[in-house]
């Protein structure tokens, strides 16, 4: 269903269910329900990495790399807010190299707000938000130079990455920075696992912000994601059973989940 330009009835049903689940979890959180979040070692390491910078007197570097404005950036900003708060509390230099000028405006606002939240608004240095380049490898080379010049104590790489991922992670490795990476790009996860101290895989990136902030809205969203994933797991299970039955009863193919989800509006003629 790649390149889907218009919704199919099946996907519309899934979308309505997703909205319903989100609404229900938000209502529960509003009513004071406490959602449990399991420990994520990589997220626990965020605080430790910032603390290490305070001990060593070295700056903290946080990059969202190639992430453009969208849900992934939004998830990264939650973590950036938590990191910036810690950096402000420990009076650390925070550097946020930027690739996307659009995202830069949001990043700057997030860091400024985090400094204000801990009562250190005047310590916020806008020069810490550095636009390096809108070109992938020019950005990577700028990041490498920055890591070597600043001798960062910790580097956080959250967001969408491509071929430059290993260049960024190796730069941190070379200066001995404690590195935490989180990517929704499965191809780059392997590189991060090899070069970083902690790696958050896929959806853990979205959970990190909720885990760090424990804000009811974020935690409720996380819970809603899990409910929806359960639904998908169920659909996969049904698909597996039907695919097996198909060997004996070819007619069940019409009821396979992917067939139902991809059927367009004209099939509703009945």
């Amino acid at each position, binding site marked *: 269903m790649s390149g889907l330009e218009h919704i199919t009835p099946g996907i519309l049903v899934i979308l309505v269910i997703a909205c319903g689940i989100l609404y229900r979890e938000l209502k529960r959180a509003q009513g004071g329900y406490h959602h449990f979040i399991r420990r994520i070692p990589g997220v626990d390491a965020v605080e430790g990495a910032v603390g290490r910078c305070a001990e060593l007197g070295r700056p903290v570097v946080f990059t969202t790399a190639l992430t453009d*404005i969208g849900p992934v950036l939004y998830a990264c900003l939650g973590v950036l807010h938590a990191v910036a708060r810690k950096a402000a509390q420990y009076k650390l230099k925070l550097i946020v190299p930027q690739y996307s000028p659009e995202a830069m405006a949001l990043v700057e606002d997030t860091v400024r707000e985090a400094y204000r939240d801990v009562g250190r608004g005047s310590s916020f240095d806008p020069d810490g938000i550095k*636009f390096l380049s809108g070109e992938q490898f020019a950005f990577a080379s700028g990041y490498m130079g920055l890591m070597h010049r600043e001798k960062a104590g910790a580097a956080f790489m959250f967001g969408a990455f491509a071929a430059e991922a290993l260049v960024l992670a190796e730069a941190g490795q070379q200066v001995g920075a404690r590195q935490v990476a989180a990517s929704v790009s499965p191809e780059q996860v392997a590189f991060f696992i090899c070069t970083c101290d902690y790696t958050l895989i896929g959806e853990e990136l*979205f959970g990190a912000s909720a885990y760090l902030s424990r804000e009811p809205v974020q935690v409720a969203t996380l819970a809603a994601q899990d409910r929806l994933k359960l639904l998908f797991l169920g659909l996969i299970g049904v698909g597996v059973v039907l695919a097996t039955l198909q060997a004996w009863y070819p007619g069940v193919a019409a009821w396979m989940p992917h067939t139902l989800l991809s059927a367009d509006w004209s099939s509703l003629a009945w």
Partner: protein
Amino acid sequence: MVTTQSTDTRTKLIRIFTFLGGIYFFLYFVLPESAVTAIGMKAHHEQISNGFIVIGAMALGLGLYNIVRAHGARVVFQRSGWFNSLALLVGLLAMIGATSAQWIENLRNTKDILSVQVLGEFAMRIVEDAKNPPTDRVVPPFAERVSALVRYGEDRVSLIESHTNVSVAAGTNGASSVLVSEVRDRIAATRAKIGELKTISWAQPGDEALSRLTQFSQDAAKLASSYSIVKRSHDAHSTPQKVYDFLFDGLFNQLGSAMFALLGVYIAAAAYRAFRVRTIESGLMMIAAVIVMLGQISFGKEIYEHMPSIRQWLLEVPNSAAFRAIRLGAGVAGLMLAIRMWLSIESKSFSSGRK
């Protein structure tokens, strides 16, 4: 009090614009294609999408401002590494200068080429208007239009001739002598046709006169086409283009390639770290990696004939399953977050609502 009120208004405005910005794409996605076409959304979709891109492009100024502010201050106050910042700013200005010069040169040349192309189109328009006089607009008298065409034609032909002579004087500047001589032939032909047009009485033009005009139009079109090739060839060897090519293709692209080449070294270093067998998991990864590598090369088949099939299975089954799981999880999380963003369900709005 006033500040709180203005902040509230600002927040409301942001939410309204976020919702309105999102609802268009939501409706476009949710409505069936037939409905989207029927209400006219489909016809304007590209323009609206381009509008959003234009708004996004405005942010480019923010990046430029940030670079100039951060590095400019470092140069002015001669802070540590100021010479790196100076190199960056000089590079930025050089690239802006080269690109602007190339753009202006291209713009001027395109305008010249268009002005020649319009000569043939003008002649054809006169012929069409003579055959089917327009009822929806008033056109000047026929003789007056032809007279203007002749004047304009002479002017354009002189311009092309002077440009072609400049090209020849500069050693044809990349335009081959065959092309230049072709343009000269066409200049001569067009000039001859202009001469013919001058001899005809245009008060009451007959079929013969209109046929001459049509021939002139065809000759002018051929001249424009040849001139365009010579001009483009000349442009490719102009100084602004050479400077741009040197900076962009010669320097920028090569530096980018050098950075990409570094990946080879880094992959080797990362592989060394990853393949140190310290746990059962890293041992499994090592075995899988060795099988994949052996399956990729012809030597692997010599060791065990099914090695390529095992490699294929590893990539298509366990590896694809893991990739899909990551993509599905990230996709679901992205969907939930997107809904939350679109409806502006923020932590702050949540708590203020509770109050």
